[in-house]
């Protein structure tokens, strides 16, 4: 597995996360990224496509033909194995941080009592 630069930028993380469940076009990625972040991460078209451009260049996502009855004006994107590995690494990193923070809170609780 290639080495992944962590942490991933928020936009890259949410785009990879949005594509984890299947191929999507730009606007669907935008909607899914907002949903995944509970609307906390506000992303516009320029940030979306600047990040998509970088993810395509780094081979983390690839363009893919859309569904047959899909909108022909839209381009669809798919997570590659490199992208999935990057997303997994980031999720593992986040999980470890949450574990550590919980452990620290426990210690703080013990020290304050």
């Amino acid at each position, binding site marked *: 597995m290639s080495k992944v630069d962590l942490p991933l930028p928020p936009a890259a993380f949410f785009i990879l996360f949005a594509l984890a469940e299947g191929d999507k076009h730009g606007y669907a990625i*935008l909607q899914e990224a907002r949903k995944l972040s509970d609307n906390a991460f506000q992303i*516009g*078209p*320029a*940030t*979306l*496509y*600047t990040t998509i*451009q970088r993810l395509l260049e780094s081979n983390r996502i690839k363009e893919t033909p859309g569904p047959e009855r899909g909108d022909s004006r839209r381009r669809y994107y798919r997570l590659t194995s490199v992208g999935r590995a990057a997303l997994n690494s980031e999720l593992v990193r986040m999980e470890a941080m949450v574990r550590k923070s919980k452990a620290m809170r426990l210690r703080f609780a013990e020290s304050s009592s």
Partner: protein
Amino acid sequence: MTGYLRLSSWIYARLVSVYPEDLRRDFGADMALVFADDLAAARRAEGLIGITHVWWCALREVLTIALPCQRTNPRILVPVASFAVNAMILGAELVFALHHPPSGAGPYKPLLTDAIRTVVLWPSVATALIALAISRTSTRGSITSLQLVSPSRERQRGL
């Protein structure tokens, strides 16, 4: 699509031209399409506040992504920056007014937003329009064309 959605899409399509060339070439049409979709969805969900929010987000991206690439090009930087900042002020004022509607009765009381509009906003809009006019004039203008055309014309005239 309603008139102002069409107008918004048209303005955004013009703003796309400020972004870096590779992004514009590869994704310009997709950006405009996503903006139009987002704007229509925001209008259905939240009305005017939703539209203002989408525009605020788009203009923030113009300031943070597009304009840093235009640092060496003041003819684009000045009018677009003025437009973006003014539109964002106007949007903030609009959202404020929608959340705090003025009461119908009683004498007129000047608000901070009125002062901002009078002292900052409209003069800034005027500045932006002037800067745009100057940039257009200098693009099509006589200085460049004279510099390029004059030598051959002078030779043709035998001067």
